């Protein structure tokens, strides 16, 4: 077996391994802290969002049966603390994304699309649970960034009553650069971690 055929066989084996995980829930975990209003106000302040739902309890009671969090904050409740006692490695959100990069030998990655579907409102005091589900891994594709594969990962969120509060779908492209080009202007990579 030549070096090239051995490498190809290894790639095929890795691909089969990751495709076997399509549809399998992984990394089920609970948020590190309850949903709280301080972050809600900080988020609203950061974009000067004056929606009275978040600032006026009378309005919130009338319209949403009490205070809620802005729907767009869904992923905020799962971003790990920058540091925590006993933690020896940095916790990464969207771990499947990083697993795919490592397993498929694709050193660079960008996120191309992000869809969020909102269900039950998230409320202060909620403790959310999440799980990640790999939905698909494409065949090899060539883009202006390089040669690699697209993948779709869903992150499902539930509250402590097991009610679905939202689903995020991320489309990522893991790749190897061709000719040493730039990773792209966006550079934002994974939505919660350097890609």
């Amino acid at each position, binding site marked *: 077996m030549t070096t090239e055929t051995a490498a190809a066989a290894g790639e095929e084996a890795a691909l089969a391994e990751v495709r076997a995980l399509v549809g399998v829930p992984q990394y089920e975990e609970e948020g590190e802290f309850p949903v709280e209003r301080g972050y809600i106000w900080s988020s609203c302040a950061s974009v000067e*969002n004056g929606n009275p739902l978040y600032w006026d309890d009378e309005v919130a009671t009338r319209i949403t049966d009490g205070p809620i969090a802005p729907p767009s904050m869904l992923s905020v409740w799962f971003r790990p603390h920058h540091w925590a006692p006993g933690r020896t490695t940095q916790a990464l959100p969207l771990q499947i994304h990083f697993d795919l990069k490592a397993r498929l030998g694709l050193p660079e990655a960008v996120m191309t699309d992000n869809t969020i579907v909102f269900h*039950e409102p998230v409320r202060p005091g909620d403790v959310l649970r999440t799980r990640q589900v790999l939905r698909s891994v494409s065949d090899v594709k060539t883009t202006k960034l390089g040669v690699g594969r697209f993948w779709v990962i869903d992150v499902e969120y539930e509250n402590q009553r097991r009610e679905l509060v939202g689903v995020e779908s991320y489309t990522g492209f893991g790749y190897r650069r061709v000719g040493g080009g730039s990773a792209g*202007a966006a550079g934002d990579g994974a939505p919660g971690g350097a890609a």
Partner: protein
Amino acid sequence: MTAIVPTLAVADLAVGDRLPDLRYDVTATTVVLGALASRDWRPMHHDKDFAVERNGTRDIFLNTPNQAAWFERYITDWTGPYGRLGRVTFRMRGSVFPGDTMVLSGTVDAVETDDVGCGWVSLSIALSVDGDVKTTCTARVAVPVDADDNPWTRRGEGWRP
């Protein structure tokens, strides 16, 4: 009782309607505040040296979750508090840096009432800098069908985002 304005309803909307533009001068504080408010500790959103040397960008730049918050604010400024986000999709094309003036603009693509009586408006929104689109967003937003309707009360089969 607190007055709630504006409150858009399905009857107020038509395909092709334009949302008022939102212009905002982005500063380093905008970027850092947005990153920390969304618990995004990655250095490219607060450390210019890292952003330049490791990411190859000219400065720190707005993170994705904070852009989501900007889009939400833009939408609900227009709908009022009865507007309820059902679904949003983002596509990132470029970065937004301190010193940029970002402009959010949007149009109504569709207006409908679904099978369970929920009113929906579909929007196309662009975040641009100097006319260059940096992020596109499509959104499906529930709005009241009449003065007695409140999309926030919809649950289970009554909520089809």
